[in-house]
């Protein structure tokens, strides 16, 4: 529904072909994507995906990796939702034409947050112990940058999405690596992880779309651009580091 309100720039970009890993060239071992996607398509078209378990159980370290990666993802999406919630009123008051764009990005973030909430509950992963702290920090960041103006708010989005997009991309790369290893041994990844891979790709593409939107809306004009984006990027990296652990 909100799509109808979007300026043509965003409409042109948003219906990215989601089943095609168009941005996997960002993941270093991109050569391995082809067979995986074919399997993923089969898996997603099957009505009952839960009946296709991996032909070899996950190792302890793989489970630990997923545990911390999904926890970080949930925390990141919580932060994204809160940043946009805090940014929207001051920003759209000053620049009403940004409202559809902000709504579009907010709705996507709310969707991402819901995806990871479901995944955490399903796989019995604890949320980060820093949950209340991140909540306060994200709100302060969103509100603060919105008060600094449109360019600063967009620079905030640009900085956050650069880190987050890279982070999702790293996870896609790891899952592709697992798929590759398994294929060599004649094993499969299983429907659950195929589905996760698809989800991570879709969300990564949407994050990178936010990054494009921010740049098109003069994120680079923010002053002091370097300081602002460096501080926010550093903050994101620190938050990811902490969340991977607690």
């Amino acid at each position, binding site marked *: 529904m909100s799509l109808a309100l979007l300026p043509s720039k965003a409409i042109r970009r948003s219906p990215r072909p989601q089943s095609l890993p168009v941005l996997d060239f960002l993941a270093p071992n991109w050569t391995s994507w082809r067979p995986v996607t074919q399997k993923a398509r089969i898996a997603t078209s099957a009505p009952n995906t839960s009946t296709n*378990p991996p032909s070899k159980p996950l190792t302890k370290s793989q489970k630990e990796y997923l545990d911390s990666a999904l926890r970080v993802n949930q925390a990141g999406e919580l932060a994204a939702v809160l940043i946009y919630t805090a940014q929207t009123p001051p920003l759209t008051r000053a620049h009403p034409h940004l409202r559809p764009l902000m709504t579009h990005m907010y709705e996507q973030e709310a969707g991402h947050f819901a995806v990871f909430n479901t995944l955490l509950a399903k796989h019995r992963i604890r949320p980060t*112990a820093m949950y209340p702290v991140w909540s306060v920090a994200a709100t302060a960041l969103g509100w603060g940058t919105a008060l600094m103006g449109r360019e600063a708010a967009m620079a905030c989005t640009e900085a956050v999405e650069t880190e987050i997009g890279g982070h999702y991309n790293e996870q896609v790369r790891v899952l592709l690596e697992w798929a590759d290893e398994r294929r060599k041994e004649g094993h499969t990844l*299983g429907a659950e992880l195929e589905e996760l891979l698809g989800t991570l790709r879709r969300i990564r593409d949407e994050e990178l779309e936010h990054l494009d939107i921010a740049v098109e809306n003069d994120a680079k004009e923010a002053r002091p651009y370097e300081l602002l984006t460096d501080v926010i990027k550093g903050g994101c990296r620190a938050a990811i580091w902490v969340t991977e652990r607690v």
Partner: protein
Amino acid sequence: MATSTRLARTLTRSSLRSLSKPPTTRRYHAADSPPPPPFSPAESAILSAALAHVPANGFTSTSLRLGARDAGYLDASTNLFPRGAFDLVNYYLVTQRLALKDSVQFPAESAGGGARIGVGKKVRTLALARLRANAEVGVVGRWGEALALMAQPTLLPASLAELARLADEMWFLAGDTAVDASWYTKRASLATIYSATEVFMTQDQSTGFKDTERFLDARLEDGMRVGGFLGGVGEWVGYTGHSLVNVLRSKGVRI
């Protein structure tokens, strides 16, 4: 009584501390492939046989030795269990926790007809079922010994991790899917309430452990009232933090 109350206090006080430090044994649960069994066939054979001796011989190395003999193993095979009697306690705790999902069944939500059971009610049912197992297996009279073993400094971390897993299992089976800051406070309060009730039960002389049931209900009610259960401190802080802006906005403050 004095000893077990002291133990309970140690357990509950440090359970809060250890829960704030996440247990390292938690991991991604693959929903499509079951986890491997926690004990080897030999361990299971010996420990389950040993458990039958607990009502008479307690959580002791004697029970362990008798169990090994019953299961057809040499006495020396108790070397399998470096933590001695504690391994027997641990076996009991783990198997009872894993048995909960089969011993308590809630009607499917989609079945219609019957009224929906709240998560709080389900948690109560699960806690009672788990407590009742202590009576059914006949370990209630020996539970003081188990607590004494569990509270030993070198074994306390393992005991608390298992207590945390029990609380997590109960919230999971009750269908609680919240993954916000209340995740921690819920598990910490349930672990505290459960272990306090378990200690109370060792002293309960009433028929059918009616007093224990009342004790549990009173603690759960306290939990609801203080808000440690559903509106935990962490959740409150986080919620207040980010909703402060929204509240001010709703009051017409233009921020």
